[in-house]
């Protein structure tokens, strides 16, 4: 599923500058980063409620392609700059993790783990 399709499906906003013309095969809904590192597959979308810079680091380490913040959470500039440097697009949506996951699951995205 492409990031553009995800943005449309969830009425999401892009928070970073740069290329969003990528696609993901899996999605991982989690707030605990060790679990992301344990379960998450490469080429995934991370759906999370945490917005600190270490979430971007986790994505970088785990080979995650993009991060979606739920409940309209907005990261500060440190997080956004790190994501731009690491070329990991950040999105946010007003939906909660349950609804965002529920909608994306209807498309061809698989879970992780």
């Amino acid at each position, binding site marked *: 599923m492409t990031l553009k399709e995800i943005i449309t499906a969830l009425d999401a906003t892009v928070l970073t500058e740069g290329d969003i013309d990528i696609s993901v095969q899996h999605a991982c809904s989690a707030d*605990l980063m060790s679990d992301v590192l344990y379960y998450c597959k490469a080429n995934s979308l991370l759906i999370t409620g945490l917005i600190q810079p270490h979430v971007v680091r986790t994505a970088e380490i785990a080979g995650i392609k993009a991060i979606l913040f739920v409940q309209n959470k907005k990261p500060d500039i440190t997080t956004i700059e790190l994501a731009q440097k690491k070329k990991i697009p950040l999105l946010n949506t007003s939906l909660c993790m349950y609804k965002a996951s529920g909608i994306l699951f209807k498309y061809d995205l698989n879970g992780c783990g």
Partner: protein
Amino acid sequence: MNQDKMPIEGSFQIIGGNFTTAGEASSEVKTVLTDLGVDGDIIRRIAIATFEAEMNVIIYAAAGQLFYEVTDEYIKIRVQDMGPGIEDTNRAMQEGYSTAPEWVRNMGWGAGMGLPNMKKNADTFLLDSVVGEGTTVEMTMNLIKE
């Protein structure tokens, strides 16, 4: 693989409680291995294990140090901290067992998956801890795909 300058070594100071720069050491290890042309899946495993070790210092210890050594066959990662030490290392190795306080869990860590995750991703894994002194984790991973 570029083997001219082997072994490659490096070290990092890790400051307890500093979540903002968390992952910088692991990120550098990842870059070194990428530049050497190591297989992507192997790099991912190493980066994950290194990051978990780094995070444990940030979460639990006052300070610590990460050393890495890369040869043409393997990478060795040693993370040594001045922390409280682990009282029951067997329990600490169980998935889901954690002594992390609530604020750490609210930061997204302390789910009790760190040490199991290191062991899962490393080819050899050694944990040595003395209560009141600190903890040392030493891991090696083969760089050649079998």
